[in-house]
């Protein structure tokens, strides 16, 4: 029975709980058991709310038994990335500087999960302040890939991706500034959606690159991503960058998910897959075949400015980060160095001792790019190139319904492999960054395994606020790939 429960996706489990075939207590206990068994090895969770989760599960079961109306995620265990604020447990962002931070408020997405009667089972590991593509930059140790413990889970939402893959939860929230939902989803063999900028409230998400950050779901099916976005999306008066209903009307993303799309056009960017490994290129080829087989037209696109997206992104993201992270000064909250003798040393030493190497590197880059004499050549120029990239992507999306691309040039790499060369690590974000720069939605879908038994994902991008259609296009591929999110080989649940 346990095994059968853990094979379900959120939607199936929610239905089973509502119809009392399975209790939330059973499902929650099954996840806690998986956490107990594997978290030590995988390092997916930083905090587990064992007692609270069990209490909430019993409460949901009781309400269902009493015939009360419950929310769409009633009784379903969901994990939350540790840069999303909760009033319960710490919110560390994977950083020593926030190791003991207790948020005075819940993020809006957390409030919405709770309103939907989800069970928040724990907070997941991440690269410090979401800066990284491996989850090795966490101050609390790396997350290991459930498919091969010697490899990275990807990042920065590596804990969320690994937890979903290893059946420690049924779905999770991550954040995506330059690929931090989609790349770990691909590395761990789960589905990951970065919504359009402005679709999901960022209130309570600890800021990294404010013009790029967006919260989104990681799950074991496309329909779960639709369900989770249904719950967390929508206008929030507490976030002035969340768009009002006049721009994005409330829509049930599940309602038309399985409806076919007539005259579907899939775009391929000329030359874009050249830098990707063979298994990735083959996966793209198979995805093209799937779409062609159902009658879609495949169009070739040119987006010449795409080649400049990594440089543009790292200037803008680090500039925004250097400003956002100025708040960690050891004064109002967070770590304060006991060695500080005066006020300036409270700033400089608390930051020196509390922040990790990658965060310092990005603060340095951003401070440089914004400093007098360099601002025009780096930051201002990057903002113009961002506009150019966006214009070209919008033009390309005018010729097709969705752009098909790799998620990353490789499958999951070995732990420690990228540590010595930060630039090489940045360059691996080449396929995920464009969606953030353009503010558009993009989804990573697992389509199979490579020769080494590691998950391979592909990515679909769509126009701003087209999530309904994008999820339908992704659903076609999910069905066609004949590969549902499996339990990683080697793990028994």
């Amino acid at each position: 029975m346990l095994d059968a429960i853990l094979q379900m996706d959120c939607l199936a489990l929610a239905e089973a709980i509502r119809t009392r075939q399975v209790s939330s207590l059973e499902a929650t206990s099954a996840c806690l058991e998986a956490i107990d068994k594997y978290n030590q090895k995988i390092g997916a969770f930083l905090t587990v709310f064992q007692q609270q989760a069990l209490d909430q599960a019993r409460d949901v079961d009781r309400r269902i038994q009493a015939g009360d109306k419950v929310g769409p995620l009633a009784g379903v265990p969901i994990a939350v990335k540790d840069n999303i604020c909760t009033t319960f447990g710490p919110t560390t962002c994977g950083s020593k500087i926030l190791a003991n931070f207790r948020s005075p408020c819940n993020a809006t997405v957390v409030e919405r999960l709770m309103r939907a009667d989800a069970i928040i089972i724990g907070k997941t590991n991440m690269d410090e302040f979401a800066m990284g593509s491996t989850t090795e930059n966490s101050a609390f140790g790396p997350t290991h890939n459930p498919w091969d413990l010697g490899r990275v889970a990807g990042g920065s939402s590596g804990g969320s991706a690994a937890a979903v893959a290893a059946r420690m939860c049924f779905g999770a929230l991550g954040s995506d500034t330059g690929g931090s939902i989609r790349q770990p989803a691909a590395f761990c063999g789960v589905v990951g959606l970065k919504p359009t900028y402005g679709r999901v409230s960022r209130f309570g998400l600890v800021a990294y690159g404010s013009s790029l950050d967006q919260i989104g779901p990681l799950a074991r099916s496309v329909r779960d991503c639709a369900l989770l976005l249904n719950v967390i999306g929508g206008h929030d008066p507490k976030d002035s960058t969340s768009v009002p209903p006049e721009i994005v009307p409330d829509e049930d993303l599940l309602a038309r998910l399985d409806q076919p799309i007539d005259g579907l056009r899939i775009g391929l960017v000329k030359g874009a897959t050249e830098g990707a490994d063979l298994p990735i290129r083959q996966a793209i080829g198979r995805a093209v075949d799937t779409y062609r087989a159902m009658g879609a037209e495949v169009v070739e696109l040119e987006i010449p400015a795409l080649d400049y997206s990594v440089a543009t992104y790292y200037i803008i993201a680090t500039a925004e980060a250097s400003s956002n992270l100025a708040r960690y000064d050891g004064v109002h909250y967070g770590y304060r160095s006991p060695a500080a003798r005066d006020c300036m040393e409270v700033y400089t030493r608390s930051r020196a001792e509390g922040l990790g190497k990658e965060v310092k590197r990005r603060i340095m880059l951003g401070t440089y790019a914004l400093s007098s004499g360099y601002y025009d050549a780096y930051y201002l120029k990057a903002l113009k190139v961002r506009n150019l990239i966006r214009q070209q992507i919008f033009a390309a999306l005018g010729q097709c319904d969705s752009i098909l691309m790799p998620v990353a040039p490789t499958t999951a790499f070995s732990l420690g492999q990228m540590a010595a060369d930060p630039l090489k690590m940045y360059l691996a974000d080449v396929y995920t960054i464009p969606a953030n720069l353009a503010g558009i939605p993009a989804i990573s879908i697992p389509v199979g395994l490579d020769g080494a038994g590691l998950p391979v994902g592909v990515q679909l991008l769509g126009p701003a606020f087209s999530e309904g259609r994008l999820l339908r296009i992704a659903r076609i591929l999910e069905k066609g790939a004949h590969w549902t999110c499996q339990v990683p080989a080697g793990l028994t649940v």
Partner: protein
Amino acid sequence: MDNLIDKALVRKVASLARLELSEQEVKEFTGQLCAILEYFHKINLLDTEGIEPLAHCLPITNRLREDQIQPGLDPGQALKNAPDRDGDLFKVPPILEEGLGP
């Protein structure tokens, strides 16, 4: 191309960012930042004549609301994470040297 950043400039940027760096970090960052900044320079190859800088991708501009009083953090909540406090105040070491204050 001359090195885009040297140790002295790394130290200056660190001081602007209020970061204390060890000698080892200064050395390591100088090399790494040099390589990264050199890579960043490729954007200068692109002609952006007549293209406006894009600060954000939203289809909305400033949103205003009525100036109504809403509940905020009470002092207890605001101070609960304070590294050091004195009653309802955040406490820091002296900012001015002794004798220079009021």
